[in-house]
Structures are given as structure tokens and as C-alpha cells.
């Protein structure tokens, strides 16, 4: 993972304007406008602020490298969103695999940075329940109920069919209802 100093981040993005098919991707503007919303998606997926910030930064770096491959500059935000979800999933998968094999839990370290920020108990109960869902269902629920994306947008972000979005959302909500003892 490439980590740049904050100044270098901004400077590199300033230089990163890319013209493609007559349109311009202003990376610096994209960064300013979308980094927080993307970081919040990442936070909901990885549950760690520092990692979320890294994931988003890497997404922008990836965009900068691949901007010339984008068919439509207006798709840059969708590209970033997909990149954030994929990176978060990859990171979680890696964490999970390591835990399975090593019986070593690093949660203490992972959450330490957020220790001063406590989510209210009733919200934490819901978030804990979400964490028990399969990865794909978590992603669908975050994009649907936090990012307010349409089924089509979620399908594009996750690279799955709209039907799969629908079924994952339904199964996820059913499981949450069971876990939380509430009605939808």
C-alpha cells in the first residue's frame, strides 16, 4: 500500500488532471468532494478509521493510475466507490483468514484508534448484528441504507446482478430482524 504524506497526496492529485475524450477528471476536486463520503462507507465496512482513510486514499491513487481507462469521466465516482468496497472486502478477508489460521485476534489494536468514540449502545447492537452477516449482505446494506444507492448502482458497485442485490438485501434484513427481534 502506497502511503504518501498528506501534502504529497494533494500535490499528486493536483497534477493528476486527466483529459479523456474531451472531458476532464479533476482529481483534486473529486477528492475534496467525495473523500469523506467514501471514507464513511469504508468505515462502515472495515470498522476502523485509519484503515478507512487508507482505503480511500488508495482508491484515488488507483483512479489516478487508471483514469485513462475510464470510458466516461462521470463514472469516476462509481469507480471510486467500487474500489473502496473491493479494497475493504479484500482487507477484511485477509484479516479473517489470518484469524482463522492463527487464532490471533488483533481487534484490540484495530479498534484502539477509535476508543475515544463510543457509539450508543442501541446503535452498537445493530452494528454488531450487521457484522454477523455474510460480507456481501453487509456491503449491500451499507450501500443501500447508508449511501442510499439504487439497486442498479449497488449492482454496478459490487459487480453483481440487480437480482443478487435484491436477494442479498432481503436476506440481510431478514437476518437482522431475527437478531434484533424487530419488524421491518
Amino acid at each position, binding site marked *: 500500500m502506497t502511503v504518501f504524506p498528506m501534502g504529497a497526496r494533494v500535490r499528486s492529485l493536483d497534477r493528476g488532471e486527466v483529459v479523456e475524450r474531451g472531458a476532464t477528471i479533476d482529481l483534486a476536486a473529486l477528492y475534496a468532494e467525495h*473523500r469523506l463520503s467514501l471514507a464513511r462507507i469504508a468505515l462502515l465496512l472495515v470498522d476502523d*478509521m485509519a484503515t478507512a482513510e487508507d482505503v480511500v*486514499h488508495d482508491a484515488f491513487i488507483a483512479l489516478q493510475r487508471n483514469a485513462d481507462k475510464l470510458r466516461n469521466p462521470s463514472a469516476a465516482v462509481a469507480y471510486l466507490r467500487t474500489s473502496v468496497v473491493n479494497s475493504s*472486502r479484500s482487507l477484511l478477508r*485477509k484479516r479473517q483468514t489470518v484469524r482463522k489460521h492463527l487464532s490471533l485476534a488483533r481487534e484490540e489494536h484495530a479498534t484502539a484508534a477509535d476508543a475515544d*468514540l463510543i*457509539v450508543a449502545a442501541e446503535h452498537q447492537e445493530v452494528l454488531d448484528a450487521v457484522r454477523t452477516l455474510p460480507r456481501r449482505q453487509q456491503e449491500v446494506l451499507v450501500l443501500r441504507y*447508508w449511501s442510499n444507492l439504487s439497486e442498479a448502482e449497488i449492482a454496478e458497485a459490487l459487480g453483481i446482478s440487480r437480482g443478487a442485490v435484491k436477494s442479498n438485501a432481503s436476506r440481510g434484513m431478514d437476518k437482522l*430482524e431475527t437478531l434484533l427481534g*424487530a419488524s421491518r
Partner: protein
Amino acid sequence: MNTTEDRLRAAFAAKAGQLTEAKLDELAARHEAGVEDLHDLDRGEHTVVLEPIDFETHRVRRRWVAPALAAAAVAVVAVGVAAAVGTSKHANPPAIQPTRPSGSIPAPSSSPTAPPSASRTQAVAPYLSSGQTGSLKDVAWSLVGAGWRLLQPAETGNTGRSLFLYDPADGRYLISDQLAADTKLVGWSPDGRHAALQLPDELDQIDLHTGQISPIVSGQNFITYTRPHGLAVLVSSDSGLQRYGTDGTHQLSYPNNINGVGKLGGQPNSMFYLADGSAFVTMGASEAILLSNSGAPLRSYNVPAGRTDCHPIRPWNSSAFLEWCIDDQDRSGLYLQPYAVSGAAVALYDLTEQSLINAWPLSNGDILLANSGHDCAETGYQILHPDGSLSPLRLPPGVPALGYILNMSGDVATFTLAPDACSSDQYGTLDYNMVTGVTTALTDTATPIVNYPTE
């Protein structure tokens, strides 16, 4: 009452709202500082000084493995070589000639107490046949040793959860069906007779000969039994690392700041004793450390160049242990290496492009390597042969691509079976003898497994 959807939206908003522009700037600034620290790092502090190593035999050429295992290379090198190449993960693969040293490598264990690997499939009476269930009175306790396992299937019977003793032929013996539903098997005492059971608020011990359960301590999480006799347990809680006798007597509170480590503690298997019980290995501030029974630091194991956060995993043999480290510039990279307890020459299993997260020696001289999966893909397994070549592990029939190794006992890998790529659900376990190729269905549910404590 709010609907589930309302509650979900509110919870997401509460969590996401913690992250503000200011917080993002702060995090970015931390990363900036981290990079500057790296620029100033005196790499010399991390240089590992080694005894001479024989490079003449077992020469290994890095190979690119099958796409299913990702475009990655696992190599075996000596620490000296690794230190010389530094950030070899970014190097051009053909430029590196990693070599597996022979003489000074902590070789895979061949404990005198360990049975021949083939014994699991050649087992005869008095073992039960695979699938047969016996009772406590059927156990030939004098035979219980390496190759025997304790398993705790997830299902709950009429009276409670069950605990089974499995012999090397996969015959099983019911030790108890009286365990509370939230009990989890976490350890097997070096005395061979007792096992530790973790409940949410209590640590218990069960006498395997009688099925009798007795409490050890409340409010503490099990880490490990002491050695050589298992007369005490190391446990942890918010107050740090403690030692209790198995009779519940508090024996010691370990200092909460040894060499700047902070509170010691962790999960089961995160620390382990030397066979003689004189000291134990655990994780220090960023490196593995050896502590005496009283908590006095005895040795600190150098972090190889380019690595950080080295965690001990488990003993590799009587004189070495296995640990994994993280690439200090790529937090997602993991590295695995045996490390001599003595601090002397070590061999480093160097991961270049892929995350190597575990390794097990097999009786035929091969070493089974595990690499973490990518996204929702399967964990990658490879066999490192004595000649240094690598080959992907072909999963046995009945194991889906997403199965992963839950436990190794000698040559026998216990695979979990999972239904789909991103699911944490499991629907059973299956034994696979890596040397003989024999498979045996073990349980229908996820199952904590603990091996007989041979080392």
C-alpha cells in the same frame, strides 16, 4: 417501535458520523508523520546478525504459481539473504535467488513422542473405527498421546453440548454431554488429563477421565496452560496478564509494562511455553519476546529489516518457534518465519508477493504453506518440497474451494466446509491426510479442535 430499517439507518449514521473532515485530516497527518519516520529510520537497528549458513543444498528457485493461488511467489531464504535484499517483495523476481539453508534450519519436528504419520490410517485395535462412538470407559488412557484430539461439535444435545475425545483412527469417545451451550473448548493441559473450557464469564477445567467440571477463575480469558505439568493457567483481562493455579489460587500478576510492551495478554495460542516451562514466548512492542515465569524479559527477537509487528504463533520444534510479521510499508503483507528460541541462526520463509500466514511440517519432509486468500477467494495452499520446489495443494474430494484448514495434527489437516465465497457459515469438518491422501468426514458442524499437547 422503530423498524429494523430505521434502526439500521440510524446505526449507520451514528457510526459514519464519527468520521469527520477534521478526523480525516488528522489521520492523513498521522500517515504523513509515519512516512517521515520511515525516511529517518536507521535500518541498521533492524539488521539481523547470523551464523554462517550452508547454501549449497536445497537451492530454491522462485516460481510463479497457478493463477488460483494468485500471481505470487513464496520463497525460502535465510535471514541474511532477506536482510540483504531488503524490500525484496518489490524486486524483479528473476534477480533474486532465494536459498533454503540446510544445516542451521530449525527442521520440522520429529518428536520422539509423535507417532508415525501413517499410523492414523493404519490404526488398528484398540482404536475405535472411524465413525464409531465409545464412552469414557472405552478409552485406553495409556495410549492417549500425539495424534489424539479433543473436539467440541456445535450441536447441543438434550442435556448440553458434547465434548469428544478422538483417537488417531477417528474413533470418538464421549467425554461429556453436560457442557453449557456457551462453553468453548480452549486448551488441553500438558498433564494430558484436563482440558480448559471458556465460558463468557468463567474459565473451567474438565477432568477428561471422569467428565467432572470445576471452575478455575471468573472474569478471565484463557491463554495457555503452564508447562511442563499444566499446574496453572495464564489468563488475561482488562487488568492484564495473570497466572492462576488450576485450583483457582491467584499466583501472579504480570507487570503491565515490560520493555514498553504495555499490557500482556491476548487470545489462546498467542503465547506459548518452552517445553521445560522455564519461560514463554509472547508478542512484545513489535517483536517476539521471551519472558521468564516471573515476567522478567529474557530475550527480544530482532525484527528483520522491512518487517514490523512480529507475532509468535506456535512452537515449530523443540528449539524454534514460528512467527509472522507484517511488511512495514504494506500493512497487508504478512511474512512467516521459524525463529530459534536461542536467538541463534534462523531461516526465514520469505513472502514476496503473497501473504504467507501459516506453515506445517509433514512427515515426508514436505512443508504445507498457507497463503491468505484475496477478496472472497479461497485460501491458497502450497506444498514446499524438500528440493525447494513448490506445488499447489489439490483439495481432496468433498472439500469446496473455500474450505480452509482449521487444525493440523501430524499429517492430518482438518478442513472446514463453507457454503459460499463470503460466508462465515460452516457446515462441517473433514480430515485429510496430506501424505496418504485418505479423507474422513469428521463432524457436521463447526468444531473447536485441540490437539494433544506434545510440545
